[in-house]
Structures are given as C-alpha cells and as structure tokens.
C-alpha cells in the first residue's frame, strides 16, 4: 500500500535531534516507560552511554543507558505495550522497545498487534507523530 511515496515497508525512527531542537527531553519519555527495577538502576539526570548488544546480530552499539534498559528489559514486559494503550502511544513505545532502530509500519504492527500496517502508516504520517519526532529514514 503506497501513501505518497511511503509504503508500509518504509522505515521510520524517532529523530532525537528534533527533540533537542524543540527543547524536549527524550530521556524523560524513555524514563517514564521504564519498569521500577530499571528506574532504580539509572537516574533521569545522569545521562550515560552503554554497550547495547543487538538481539539478532550480536553487534554492539553505544546507546543511552535508559534506552538500552527500555529495549532490552522493559520492552518485553506485558505492561510496556498493553492493548488498551492508544495506538499512537503504542507506536511510540514500539520505537523505544526497538532501541529506536528504524522500523516499518509492518514491523511495528508485528510488535504491537494493533490496527493494521496501513493504519499504522497513516498514524506515522500524522501531525501527532510528527510532533513526537517520528521521521522516515
């Protein structure tokens, strides 16, 4: 399905520069999503990068410790992506769960099981998601 030039296979990510340029703190969003255990491990104020191990390739990337925690630990918890969550929220959480690795609408759908790839694509292109810094690769 093509919407403009973008399709359900087009990849999106959260543009962290956009957050910075707009004076917003992405770490706050991630911290809010953390489970209590992870919240105890790191503080919101102390930003640090850690080695994040890719769950498929074993590749190591330097990643914000909160995002590493969110993707590797909390992202697997049932409450991280619950069915009652609004779709736009669930999509945003899906990016955090993936460590902000670029994802397509189809991949997000496979992760959140809400709506459909087409509906998710439309949401990804919505003003609300644009305001959250969601950008096509």
């Amino acid at each position, binding site marked *: 399905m093509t919407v403009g030039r973008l399709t359900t296979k087009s990849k999106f990510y959260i543009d962290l520069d956009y957050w910075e340029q707009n004076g917003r703190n992405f770490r706050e969003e991630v911290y809010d999503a953390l489970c209590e255990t992870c919240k105890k491990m790191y503080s919101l104020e102390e930003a640090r990068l850690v080695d994040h191990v890719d769950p498929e390739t074993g590749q190591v990337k330097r990643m914000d410790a909160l995002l*590493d925690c969110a993707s590797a630990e909390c992202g697997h918890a049932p409450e991280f992506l619950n069915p009652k969550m609004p779709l736009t929220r669930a999509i945003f959480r899906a990016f955090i769960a993936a460590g902000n690795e670029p994802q397509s609408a189809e991949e997000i759908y496979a992760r959140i099981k809400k709506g459909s790839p087409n509906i998710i694509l439309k949401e990804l292109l919505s003003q609300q998601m644009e305001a959250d810094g969601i950008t096509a690769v």
Partner: protein
Amino acid sequence: MFAGMSASRGAAIFCLKRTSMSSASETYWNNYSVNERDVERVYAFMLEKGEAVRTADLARVVIAARAHEEEERRRRLSAQAVLYQPKLAFETGQRLIFSALNDVEGTVTSIRASDNPRLKPFRVAAVKFGDGLIREFACEYDLPHPLNEVKPIATGAADESPDEIQARFGPRIERLLTARLRGDKEFVEQAGKWLLRGLLTDVNVGFLNIAEAAIEQNNAGMTTPELARVLELDTDVAKHETTLFSLDYALQRDDRFVDVGPSGQTRWYLNRLVPADVWSVPRVLQFGAPSKRSEPLPPELETILSEIQDDNNDDEAEAHVPATVNVILTYPHRRAGSLPLTQGVRALFPLADKPMLIALLDEYGVRIPAWVAPEENYIFGLKAWYDRSKLNPGALLELAPHPDPLTAVIRFQPRREGKSLWVKIAKVESGHLTFGTSPRPVAYKYDEEMLILPEDQNGLDKLSATNYGDRPLELLLADIFPELVKLGSSSIHAKTLYSAVNFAKRVGARAVFNALANSEAFTTTGGGYFVLQMAARPAQVFTEHQGKPL
C-alpha cells in the same frame, strides 16, 4: 558493505540449523550448471577409463568432484575463519564469519571490556570488514542470544553423500551433462553411453559391408557382440566394450541398418528387409474412430469380452505373465497377415518401443519371421501362413510362450474338412457391406458366432479404400445389422457384429459392445443377442456414403 561476498559462497557455507536436506544444498544442486571444469573432469575420467561409460557414471564423477571441492573449500575456510558466536572468545587478527550478516567475513582488530552495568561483564571485539568498515561485536557474552544456539554446520554441495546427491539430483545433473556433451565434438553418445571420439575403434565401410551380408545370410536380428564376432573385432579383450560401442555407433549411423530389438536390447537388421507394412500401417489395420461412449458394459457383455482377446489400441500397459492365449482371427488381421497385439499376446514378448523382429513357430516347428508393431498393436508377417493354413476370420488361434523370449508358438486346431459347412460370407454390393451364406470347406476350429468368410476379396479391398468405414461406429453397426438379419434371424450376437463390422473397419470388441449397449438403436434380447430398433436407427444410416476412393 557486503558486496564482496559471493552469493554462492553465502549459500554454501553455513546455515542456522540442519534439516534432512539443507536449503543451501538444495539451492546449490538446483542451480547447478555444467562448467568447463566439469567437462574436463569427465574427459579425464573417460580417458582413464578408456571405455564407454553411462551418463549416470559421469554425473557421479561430477557430483563427487564438486562435493570434494566444496568440502576442501570449507575446510580451508574453517581453518582460517570461525563462525561468530557471542559466547566465544576471540583474539586480534582472528577471522570470523557472521551468519546473521549473510556469512560475511571480517577480521578482529581489537578487543575491549564491555561497558554496561545492567549486564554481566563481557568483551567487545572490533571487526574490520572487506569494505573497510569496522563494527563492534559482543564476545565472551554468556547471556542468552540466538547466535549462541547456532551449531556451525557446513552446508552446500557437500552436505550429503554423493549417493544421496545422485539419488536426489542425479536426473537433473545427467540431463544437463547430456545437453552439454552433445554440443562437444570430443564426445560421442550411443544408447545412453559416452565415449571419447578419439577412443572410437575404426569401423570402416568394409566392416559394415560384411555386417550387412552376415545379417542378410542370417535373416534375423543380430546383437552387436554377434556381429563383432563375425567381423573378428572382438579379439582385444581389454577393449571389448569400446569395440562394441564403436560398432554400435557405426551401425547406428549407417542407413542400411536398423535396430529391431526389444527396449534396451539392440539387435541389428537390414532396413531394406523390413516390410513396408511395419513402418506404415496398412489401411485395413488402421483403427476406426473410437466410440464416444465408454460406460461400463453390462455383466453379460463383460463375460463375452473376457472370452475373446480384445483388439484395441487404448489398453493401459500392464505386466502380464506369459501364458498360452487364444485369439479369434478377425478380417483386418486375416487380410493384412497380422495378429492383434492384445494384452495376452503382448505378454509373450519383451517390451518394445519400436518395431521388433520376433519369430513364431508353427505347428511343424517352422520359423515364421514376424514383426511386433507396438504402437499400432499388431504382429505382422503371417499372410503366407494364413494362406497355407486356409484360415479365415473366426478361426481360433493359440499362441504359447517359448523359451526364447523373442519367439512364440502359434497353432490352430485342424478340423476334418468333410462336408462343406454353410457359413456366413461377406461381400460388397453397391458400395455397401453385405452378407450371405454359402457352403464352404472349413479345415480349422472356429468361433460359431464370428466365422465369416470373405466372398468378394476384390470388392472388400475396394471398400477398405473408401471412406465407408470411417463413419461413426454406431452408424456402421446400424448399416450392417439389417444385412445380417437378412440371413434369417432378427437377433444378432454381439460377437457376430464385432466380426462383421471389422470387415468395414478395424475396431475393438469393447468399442463394439459399448456401441451396442449404449445406443438406443439396439436392444438386447439376452445371451449376448441384440435386435435393431428400426425407429431408433441413426438418421444418417440412410444417407448414401460417398464411397470415394481415398
């Protein structure tokens, strides 16, 4: 980044888990194409062997070589590179293969300690890839990770044993090899075997002339070893196979000779001695259009059918044990000097896929050369014997197996001629087949219902040459039926109609019985007898046929 990785290598080295037939191996052999090295290998094998070899043997050579080559390559690779697994420890300079990255290879350039308080400490290896980029990978990482579960298994061409590969992919490889070798003048092919042209024994025209004379004198098909003996070409035991191959090859390419043996058994004969009626079916032996209907027959007709050997061309090939069979002669075979190649008769001889020279031994043990025409379902060559034995349509014949598979015994049961019998006769009036009765001597046992003697052979031959018999079977039967009724009985037996309609066209008993059982024009009166419903006769029956000579 991984452009330097060849697709074949990627497919051939590693996979995540092994199944009964790995997809890498399947891909390898399904995408196999013959290359120059394969041809060189085959050439070297044939040169060393020095004799004709089967295509399957050549395929085996290629499979074994390719599998060995792949195994060597894998061994070389594995000696140099290790499959990357996060749990393993590496050292600088070590080469790694990354299965999750399309089996790309890289070299460890440095190793450092990990930095993540959430995780148990591990090491991080910096790996440089072929395109110059460096990526970091976890090592000595004991935590659960899918790559830690991977078992390094070599896959590809060498996954299975050569036997397994040949069983699975042999036919495809043989087909490709055959196509490739046929286009190469270095190789000569004969009956599924190959020989290097340079190894062919010289079989010159002088040898072929002697072979021609030998076959003519023998007046029988001769095997290649028999001809080699005659030509004294079989003295060199070491080159025996090559000599036979070369002789076969030379005979095959000389129009004077023809292979008249059973399937897979070459027997050479002379083309000019093969009767024309073996190559082209005489008109009288050409089958009529099959009946459109093929419903099961009533049990009564099935019983009658089982008592006579049906002569048709749509039987499925079935394996039968050779046994004595009884055949009732019909007009087309009497006229052509042939026998129907029924299921039972077929079982008396080896399988043939082309005209095959056989012999029939008569009641005196006299050998009658005859030809099996497998496609058109007849055995040709009995005209003189029929004439000599004064046999006619309806005569009972018996064929029996013989120890020589290319020979069968044929006989009829003589009958004291005594007083002439009143028998049905077939003749032609105004371009139509008609019947009468006449006293005739009958010196053989016969089928009561099927005995019909040709009265007017010239007229019958002319009728065969017209399109009279080309009409639908139901119309032919409806045309013939009243002619038989004129002889005295309103009901006619199915076998009589089968015998009678064959004077117009060769047609099988099942087809005739089907037409009788399923046409509204005919009604059974029991015991295999039928009456013609005049009102239901097909309209066209009254239309005069064209009677044009064909």
